[in-house]
């Protein structure tokens, strides 16, 4: 499968939300669109699945123009865009039956598929309740189930862990990790959590103000950490790249195996923190990724 964005621009009135953007995704795996709020992540996905029309440019999936082959292309996609809402007087099972039928599943096959996807997302227990009574997290799990129906080769997931409790988020991450185990799908997902992107992704695309700022393979041998404290020895330490965020803070890209040694040698009396989301951090990641 291949997804190709060709000179895509999306304007809302005079405001340019996206582009011009050229991007080709041709290898299976988890491709993460990372960026702060308003970066254009959701707009990019909306344009890709036809919920918004590009002001300029074209999208091709397997060489087919999306505008001309919309229905055929959507058959191959599992989609979760924004926080999902469903018809409140229907049950989760009815929503999944509806989706399955639109994707050509009927009878026993449909029943088995509903059982499969709801087990994966942990939504079996509330599947027969009306959606109007679902919590945000339950709707999110149902949304992921909907996207999984019929095991599509392309999955588009917009902030899939949004609204789910911390334990549930970890479960969803593992679900995505397992889906990607054999690298049989393109899983395109957005997040603003760098840790999530680092953990899951094969490729990270950083989007800012509607433009691609960085597009790198996520080398899992490296980790990103933020150090707070005395940074005087940082310049002399070999094997790292870093960017100072302030006088006493720096973002560091370091080999995972070097981390214990680095911790002993350099960050004595310093505090190592997991990186947090901020535009400053993302700017630093872009620079570090280019090294």
């Amino acid at each position: 499968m291949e997804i190709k964005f060709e000179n895509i621009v999306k304007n809302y009135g005079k405001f340019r939300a996206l582009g011009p953007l050229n991007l080709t995704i041709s290898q299976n795996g988890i491709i993460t669109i990372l960026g702060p709020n308003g970066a254009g992540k959701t707009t990019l996905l909306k344009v890709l699945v036809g919920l918004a029309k590009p002001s300029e440019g074209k999208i091709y999936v397997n060489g087919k123009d999306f505008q001309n082959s919309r229905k055929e292309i959507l058959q191959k996609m599992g989609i979760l865009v924004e926080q999902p809402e469903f018809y409140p007087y229907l049950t989760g099972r009815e929503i999944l039956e509806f989706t399955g039928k639109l994707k050509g599943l009927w009878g026993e096959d449909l029943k088995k598929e509903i059982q499969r996807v709801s087990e994966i997302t942990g939504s079996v227990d509330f599947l027969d309740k009306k959606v109007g009574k679902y919590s945000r997290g339950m709707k999110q799990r149902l949304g992921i189930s909907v996207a999984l129906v019929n095991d599509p080769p392309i999955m588009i997931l917009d902030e899939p862990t949004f609204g789910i409790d911390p334990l549930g988020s970890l479960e969803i991450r593992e679900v995505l990790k397992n889906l990607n185990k054999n690298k049989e799908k393109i899983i395109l997902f957005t997040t603003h959590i760098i840790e999530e992107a680092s953990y899951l992704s094969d490729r990270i695309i950083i989007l800012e103000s509607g433009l691609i700022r960085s597009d790198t393979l996520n080398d899992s041998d490296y980790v990103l950490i933020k150090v707070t404290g005395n940074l005087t020895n940082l310049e002399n330490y070999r094997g790292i790249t870093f960017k100072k965020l302030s006088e006493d803070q720096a973002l560091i890209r370091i080999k995972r195996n070097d981390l214990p040694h680095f911790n002993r040698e350099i960050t004595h009396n310093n505090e190592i923190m997991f990186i947090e989301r901020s535009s400053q951090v993302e700017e630093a990641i872009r620079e570090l990724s280019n090294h």
Partner: protein
Amino acid sequence: MQTNFFNIYLHYFKNYYRSKSFYLILIIVALASFLMSYLTFKYSNRVSEMLPSRLISLSRVNSELLMMYLWAYIMSGLPVFASVFFSSPAISSEIEMRTGYFIFSQPVDRTVLVLAKYFAAVTVTIISLLVYLFSEVFSIIFVYGFIESDQLFWSTAMLILFILALTAFTFLLSSIFNKNLYAYITSFVVYFVIFYAVNLILYLLYDYNAFFLLNNAATIMERVYININPTIFTNNFSLNPAGLNDIVLSSVVFIIYTIVCLVGAIVIVENKEVQ
């Protein structure tokens, strides 16, 4: 396409008939049915005596026909409420309630989505009005021992055409807006204020009967019993049922509204972005 259409139709139909709006409309229709049944049972023989003096000639009409006219007169207002409740939020709610993210990213043409939802809305509107129709038939047969079946057939046929047209009209208005409230208000204002005002102005200033207005065409439901149009002030009316020409004219108006409004709604939805 047929399979998808039926699947989507059922999906929306289930969501409609389980909704609170459906039960609210059923209560309103049941209330109207009760009041009209009360009138029929209590005043069946004195109904023509209660008419204003300018309509005294109506006393010559048999009271059964007059009673059915009154039933149809009330009935012509009920589909407006039912259609507005079910159809005004039909498209706008997909945006406001954010279900559009789900439904518009399904592998199905938006035209099929609109048409399936349209027929689901028409079905629940008709179902909700069946209570009224059954009450009418039961009351009239019970009190008078028989019913004018030809006129009842035409009145019911016109009711169905009116529901088709009105639902299409409210779908068109709904497709313009992204907020349900705007769609509700606009539907009511256009039907009960704009249409009536245009009708009145054209009649008073130009002595012109605006047959093309939906509310005017809807009077055919009662005019198949006695040819009096309650939306215009005139002393020229016929005590005979409306003729075939009037039925055809109203049918054409309904069909044109249905086609034009549905095409308009489909074109708007095809180009609608989910925001």
